């Protein structure tokens, strides 16, 4: 006998959006790909490493997570041509990156800082990337944004200013050597601000 018994009736599916399900533990042979973490080429001016750790509610690394980022380029333009599965050109930029975490829950992308792009109301926003986090134990993705700690525009960004002051830093990457560091706290005292987009 199972510990759980969920009722299964003959109710039919209603038309509508497909629900989310977890990415599960076994995506490693299917989703990550060579050069996936390279959003920008190594020789592109201003390219840096955006890296960090994904941590669970006890502060332990999440070694089986997948992160994806999507962003504008230095001029605030979005890539509209295909090519995310191909090696990025040395000075190229493709806007999208995918990276699985390692045994220590670490990830690293190579990218550039985007220009700020306006929001739906036409109001200016500080430079930011969009992030999706997928993992076993997450029935749906978690979404956040990465801002940068050396941007004065953060003080007037419509999303950042709408968040409690004490939590804003969870969406802001900090300078780390020549790059930036951004840890994701899935749960706990320092829980990252997650966004409702789905």
């Amino acid at each position, binding site marked *: 006998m199972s510990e759980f018994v969920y009722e299964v009736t003959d109710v039919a599916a209603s038309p509508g*959006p497909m629900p989310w399900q977890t990415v599960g533990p076994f995506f490693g042979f299917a*989703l990550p790909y060579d050069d996936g973490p390279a959003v920008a080429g190594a020789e592109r001016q201003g390219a840096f490493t955006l890296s960090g750790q994904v941590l669970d509610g006890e502060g332990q690394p999440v070694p089986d997570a997948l992160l994806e980022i999507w962003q504008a380029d230095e001029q605030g333009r979005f890539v*509209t041509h*295909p090519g995310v599965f191909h090696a990025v050109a040395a000075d190229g930029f493709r806007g999208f990156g995918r990276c699985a975490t390692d045994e220590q829950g670490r990830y690293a992308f190579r990218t550039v800082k985007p220009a700020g792009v306006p929001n739906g109301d036409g109001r200016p926003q500080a430079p930011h990337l969009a992030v999706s986090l997928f993992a076993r*134990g997450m029935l749906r993705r978690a979404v956040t944004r990465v801002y940068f700690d050396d941007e004065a525009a953060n003080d007037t960004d419509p999303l950042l200013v709408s968040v409690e002051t004490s939590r804003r830093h969870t969406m802001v990457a900090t300078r780390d050597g020549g790059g930036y560091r951004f840890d994701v706290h899935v749960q706990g005292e320092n829980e990252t601000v*997650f966004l*409702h987009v789905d």
Partner: protein
Amino acid sequence: MGDTAGDGGFEARRLAPQPPDESRLAPQPPDELDPPYSFPDYRSTALRSPQKALVVPPFGMTELTGPAFGEGDVRESDADLTVHGAGEAIGERIIVHGTVTDGDGRPVPHSLVEVWQANAGGRYRHDRDRHPAPLDPNFTGAGRCLTDAEGHYRFVTIKPGPYPWKNHTNAWRPAHIHLSLFGRAFTQRLITQMYFPGDPLFYQDPIFNGVRDERARKRMISVYDHDTTVEEWATGYRFDIVLDGAAATPREQP
């Protein structure tokens, strides 16, 4: 660089409702569609579920756009998971197909669909899979394709087997295929699982039942499709997918 379009190359087609600022920190409204982060029956959610209220962002162009895909991104053989070994993959050969549409019922063309699954014995080609079932040298279990101009996709694969996991006593996952879709925009990104009609394991699976609304849950069960079944070769299953979410569309070129 020359291939990028400026912000002015897009127009927002359906902007998400913009709540007043003070409501952005309100508790998450009940969501009949997607499973909750916290679902104790699925034990791994305990330490991996965000507990604080989600924030509704003022969507910007970053969320309303997404990567584009083209013919060079996939090979035709990527959509047939049974032809990558020296011999025939073992198991029940099936065709899985369907149409991807947006929330307004419009087809989503030229969009990436990725799939991965266990083999007929319920074993994944993954280092961490410890299920003592055989690997099939002729079945990789991963594929990808693009939707066509009408939003249609099609894979040839092997019906996956159920497999045990340690979530609860004698726990078995119903047979399923994982699907990952991009849609037109970051807001339309979806990872889900496709199930098979009549699976006897639904009643004890907390992942399938994590979608609390039964009518929405049933959308994840594919439909046997005799019109797609190919005589003397493979049976067919239909799995249509609606991707909700606002998106910006490239402006028509004059």
